């Protein structure tokens, strides 16, 4: 018995050590980004970020002030000169990202959950054909759609409008949304619906009172997926939102910075970190639902 215990505690130490090594490897790139974002410009370009633990220890938040600030602002550089630099106004882009992302998450979820409900629990002509097509569309690369849709938008006056990009994200997000929610909604026990339908409840009532509340874990995990995808998307925003600064989202501004300030790594790192903050917060906040919902969608037992 005692021997078994010794063996067991050795085993857990090894498990934790291996995990620790893996986690460190996984975290190092992000740590490097964060440290670089709080280092002065000259240091970022000349020495490795890990040297902050030694000789090049100075840290600064100037990079963040510069990327978030709107107009020009001044700071004192390492040589003691006062430097005036123009900011990148990421605050505005931050707000734009929210305006684009929130409806682009909620609208496809509303539409996808309604469709998934119909596919799972209603009889109508073409049900199997339509569902097959939806799953097939999962694999269509969205690049296919960019030019035809852009032409339609020019005809409708939707280019550069929020409505246009919401609809685009809805269209591109629907196949996965319907697929994931179908997997979940179709596993709700049949009796739950039977009694409701026998009582003569209208499908819309069944949908809004029963299906939606029961599907919260799946909806939450889909919401996280769609949120991460829309918030981090560059291509769709670039094509449908256009280049004007007053509607540009964070990734667009960041990509512009990569282009125009390719050498200003201290600003790029700060910008990249600003863009990461919200998705990380969303992920850690909704983590619990995420696991439950994904489970339901993918594990068949």
């Amino acid at each position, binding site marked *: 018995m005692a021997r078994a215990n010794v063996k067991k505690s050795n085993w857990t130490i090894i498990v934790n050590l291996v995990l620790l090594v893996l986690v460190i490897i996984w975290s190092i790139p992000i740590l490097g980004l964060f440290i670089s974002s709080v280092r002065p410009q000259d240091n970022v370009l000349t020495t*490795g970020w890990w040297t902050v633990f030694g000789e090049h220890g100075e840290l600064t938040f100037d990079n963040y002030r510069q990327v978030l600030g709107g107009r020009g602002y001044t700071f004192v550089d390492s040589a003691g000169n006062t430097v005036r630099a123009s900011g990148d106004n990421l605050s505005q882009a931050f707000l734009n990202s929210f*305006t684009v992302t929130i409806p682009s998450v909620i609208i496809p979820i509303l539409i996808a959950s309604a469709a998934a409900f119909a596919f799972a629990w*209603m009889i109508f002509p073409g049900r199997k054909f339509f569902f097959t097509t939806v799953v097939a569309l999962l694999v269509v690369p969205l690049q296919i759609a960019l030019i035809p849709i852009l032409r339609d938008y020019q005809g409708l006056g939707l280019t550069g409008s929020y409505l246009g990009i919401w609809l685009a994200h809805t269209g591109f997000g629907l196949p996965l949304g319907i697929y994931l929610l179908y997997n979940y909604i179709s596993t709700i026990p049949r009796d739950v619906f039977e009694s409701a339908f026998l009582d003569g409840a209208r499908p819309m009532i069944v949908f809004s009172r029963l299906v939606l509340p029961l599907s919260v874990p799946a909806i939450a995990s889909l919401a996280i997926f769609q949120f991460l995808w829309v918030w981090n998307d560059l291509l769709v925003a670039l094509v449908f939102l256009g280049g004007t600064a007053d509607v540009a989202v964070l990734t667009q501004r960041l990509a512009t910075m990569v282009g125009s300030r390719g050498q200003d790594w201290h600003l790029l790192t700060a910008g990249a970190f600003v863009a990461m903050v919200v998705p990380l917060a969303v992920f850690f906040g909704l983590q619990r639902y995420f696991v439950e919902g994904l489970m339901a969608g993918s594990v068949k037992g």
Partner: protein
Amino acid sequence: MMERRIEGKNLGAQALVAIGRVAVSLFVPIVAFVILWAGFVFLRDSNASQGIIALVAIIWGVGGVAMLFWVADWVVNRLPVMAAKKLQPFVFVGPALVILAWYLFLPTMRSLYLSFFDAQSKTFVGLANYVFAFTDSKMLESFVNNLLWIILGTGGAVGFGLVIALLADRSRFEKVFKSLIFMPMAISFVGAGVIWRFVYAYKPAGEDQIGLLNALVSLFGKDPQAWFTLRPWNNIFLIVILIWLQTGYAMVIISAALKGVPDSIIEAGRIDGAGEMRIIRSIIVPYIFSTLVTVSTTIIIISLKIFDIVFTMTNGNYGTEVIASMQYKQMFRFYHYGRGSAIAIVLVIAVIPVMWYNLRQFGKREGF
């Protein structure tokens, strides 16, 4: 006489009721439409501050969709019972079908059509674009690379995901470990590009290295390398980024499946004298096999469509081209719509086996 009058009155009343019903049925959608239109005009022309516009836009967009569903359902329920029953499912599934047709289905059909035409989509060229897709040296290179992405990327992400999930299951600090491994999932490809520059950055020998990998190489007394020009290994350096991004996803799902393995089977294995490795190989892995397949499917599709990492890190140079980056270049750089469309169709065809597997799962479900 009396009867007739009553009958007439009834008829008149019925007609009035019918007209009233139609009027109400029309009135509600019209009001809904006017509200939506007013919101649209406000958003288009208003000079209010950014914050207010954003708020109105969000409420209008989300509320509008919910209202459309509600109005459609309301109208359908005004119809005679038989018609209502027939139309009801389409209230739910209709919006999704319309949007999917517009955004994905029709563009795909259009690409299929255009793939038989020349660069300007004017002259019919038969299969010439497909011949190009399967013979051009850059295309062949991209096929080989994509295969590498699928095998190493999927294998790496699922392999690491499985190992980490199994280990974390046996650790007290499971949550912390899993959260940290999952973190890269929250990062955009643009952001990941910036992050990995600090790993792969290159400076000539003798200078201070700012890239982690070259600093390590220098530490062991070797010459620093320009990793992205180092064929054919540069593909693997790019695939590492995908593994880094996707392992968290594989881990979360596999880990959830592990929780579903009944303790009793594992216990039975222990009693029969099986070691930990044997239990994992002969009990746990077969039990969660369908989950492993689902996760692999998802990551195979991601690897097949991989674009952003290649595009931001090497732009397809130095022998790192993949199918999606070839498609993008033909379409948006050379404006050869025929070839671009053909490559896109090849990409769709390549996923058919994966798709077929997924469709088998759509069983013979009964509806109401």
